[in-house]
């Protein structure tokens, strides 16, 4: 089973919602691992086998109760300043790319696909995370983590929309609209994240988006003032974090998020149904 979480923007909550799904399914005996086809991040983690992956995937891996490995993030892009980005493939530095030196996609992309297929062996569910917004129409042809992964690996997808800044219906609908037509059949669901207040007011809007897109609303997740590892440079790192062991503290925050999601009636079964394809 496999599912891809796409965001309406950076910071929409892809990383934490992916981690939450990892945690929930792990707690319920589903053998789950995280995957992110390509990660642009300054915060990386060294795996036991001496490779480098994005911090987000390490965190999601802990949520699954398994040791992080390089297959979970086979392509890591690390900005080094002055427009230079170090390209890490399968955990090892491969090249520096810049405006005039594009990434060698012929080399990198088959390895991204191969890593995913290795994860499929021996696991029940792969929770994949996209990157930024999947529909930046000026650079969509260069995308890996969203459009390439979706098309190449045919992964059913869910959009995460952040309601905190407003315009969430427009963001979800607009994202769906700009997804290429040959991939629309993979767009299965959406989640409204970081909601405060009385959820019943959203009802008519959710229904309308379901009608317009054919996607199913899997739930409205409550706003959580909890701290998780910093993924990319834009995320703010506020929120509470208690205890001495940072690793355990993140997981305990995640457990709280899972419990709150269950209480809010989040449709975890619906996610599995989508992941089954």
């Amino acid at each position, binding site marked *: 089973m496999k599912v891809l979480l796409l*965001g*309406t*923007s*950076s*910071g*929409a909550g892809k990383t934490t919602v992916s981690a939450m799904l990892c945690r929930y399914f792990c707690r319920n005996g589903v053998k789950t691992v995280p995957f992110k086809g390509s990660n642009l991040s300054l915060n990386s983690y060294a795996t036991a086998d001496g490779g480098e992956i994005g911090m987000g995937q390490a965190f999601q891996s802990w949520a699954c109760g398994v040791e992080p490995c390089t297959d979970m993030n086979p392509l890591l892009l690390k900005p080094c300043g002055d427009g230079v980005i170090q390209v890490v493939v399968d955990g090892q530095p491969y090249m520096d790319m810049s405006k005039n030196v594009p990434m060698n996609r012929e080399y990198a992309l088959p390895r991204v696909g191969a890593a995913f297929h290795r994860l499929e062996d021996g696991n029940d569910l792969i929770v994949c995370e996209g990157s*930024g*917004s999947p*529909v*930046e*129409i*000026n*650079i969509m042809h260069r995308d890996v983590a969203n459009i390439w992964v979706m098309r190449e690996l045919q992964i059913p997808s869910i959009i995460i929309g952040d309601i905190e*800044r*407003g*315009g*969430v*219906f*427009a*963001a*979800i*609908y*607009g*994202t769906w*609209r*700009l997804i290429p037509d040959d991939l629309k059949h993979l767009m299965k669901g959406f989640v409204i994240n970081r909601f405060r*207040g*009385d959820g019943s*007011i*959203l*009802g*008519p*809007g*959710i229904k*309308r*988006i379901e009608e317009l897109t054919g996607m199913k609303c899997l739930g409205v997740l409550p706003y959580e003032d909890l701290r998780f590892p910093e993924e990319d440079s*834009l995320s*703010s790192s*506020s929120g509470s974090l208690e205890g001495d062991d940072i690793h355990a503290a993140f997981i305990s925050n995640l457990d709280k998020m899972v419990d709150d999601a269950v209480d809010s009636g989040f449709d975890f079964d619906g996610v599995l149904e989508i992941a089954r394809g």
Partner: protein
Amino acid sequence: MDCIKKKVNEEIQAGWIGTNRNCEYNPCHFKGQDCTFCYCPFYPCHDEDLGNMLIGRRGNEVWACSDCLFIHRPEVGRYVMSEIRRLGIESVPDPRMMDIFRDAKEKLWRPGKALMVVGATSDAGKSITVAALCRILSNRGYLVAPFKSQNMSLNSKVTRCGAEIAMIQVLQAQAAGLTAPDEHMNPILLKPKGDDVSQVIVCGKPYADYDVKGYYGEFVPGPGRDIVKEHVDFLKKRYDLVIMEGAGSPAEINIYDVDIANMQAAKIADADVILVVNVEWGGSFAYALGTVELIPEEDRKRIKGIILNNVRGHTENLRPGADKLEEITGIPVIGIIPHAEIDLPSEDSQGLRRSHSKGNGKAVIGVVKFPRIANFTDLDPLCLEDVSVLFVERAEDLDGVDAVVLPGTKNTVSDFRWMCENGIADKLRSLRGRVPIAGICGGYQMMGSILDDSNGIEGGEKRVYEGLGFFGNKTAFGEYKKVVVQDEGHLKVGDLGAIKGYELHMGMTEVTEPPLLVIENHFDTGPVDEGSVREDEMLFGTYLHGIFDKPSFRKYFLSFIKHDGVVHDTSEVRSYDDIVDENLDKLASVFEENLDMDRLLEIAGVVR
């Protein structure tokens, strides 16, 4: 009336004078106004486009036109005086004056247009865009007014007439070169009180409290729409262009029919609409397209342009995407605006939450971040000084600070209890006399010895609290009544310099301390002392919001700061108004350089 006629005759003798830069009140209406007729030669014109009949104090009818700007428009003052000369009129009354009025109005008056700026999200940059357009168009000689039908904000200001409106409309009015913003520019102000409930301020006065359902279920279908119409129409009659600001996203389809802050307001004002999208977070094309397409077709037609805002890096990188967006939506992208480093007051608490520390200097000013903090734009001038402003929520965060400010709060008693429970109150007591501490409004009330809430107005519970005890003052929340007033005066300490601000508070304080300042503009009472000071203990308190805006008090307060034994250098302290004005110019030029201005003027409908 005879007195006015005498003044008008003096004006006729003096002839055309244009803008009177020698007048201490200039500009009393707007930058570049014509002062030839300080007193209107047509009073009372009884023209409903320009004024209206009011019932006076004695029950008599009075023609009211203090908001009329017609005679102060440069082209009108000049025309009227030239006609008076041409016809050889030497004094009023003269029957030919009304002929001049009719001609002037026919030639030079037309109802204004409205242009609306909506955003794909709440921090899309609407407010800043409106401010920039106000400045650009005002510089080009248009008389422009900002307008936001409904604003949810904790930062408000008091107008000349004692009405409470959102801070950001005051800023936009300043951008438009207007001296006295009024309640028409923000007729509905929602001040969140917590738990989904907001105090609704209508035309600058408290109206009622509503929760979300009550607001959309009762207020909007009731008086809401009419309020928007009345005030936007009022402004349209007086200005060339009303630049309206939306709220949040206009495509919240769950509340679309009752959302009087966005497309409904555009419909009411017959305004064309510009959509602003913040590209910083990504997904901007999706946000733009989704917003456009979720708006019903009849309203969608009003959207005439898209602005991609806050671009870091090269704006031309976005052009291919912008072209595709134009192709799909059929709406032109009229501007791709780069991110600009600009210091302007921030509208909502979002900005406050994101940046825990502003400013750059080594000396640290700790600002207690009350859960119900309000009017925290008071702190903005400090953020421009060579200090770090740190918002603190825990007692230990006050360790090592060089000064403390207790800001305003929406609820003094509740926030005081919060401060006692988490140890901040004790911490402040231990800092007394060691670092300068200033309290504003609610923070000032807390610095006293007693907070008397025996009617349970503030905290719900009927109780009397012991305050911080820095001052002997006693504050009583006797009844549900709010003081809303603009103040001007001068300090009684430091350089005795001018201060200007406004009061917005519940509760009355019995002051036992020497006053910090004296207020001189309350004509009915004469000068009154205000605030409290204990200079030897570096304790300062005042009800005045905006106390840091003018340089005097800021300089005075900062002069008590000693960081690593070094007294803070206050030689460069400047007026915050001037700094804001420079930043508005900077902002306007960034927009002007990156906007298709011809297109914008065409959309606004003000092409001459």
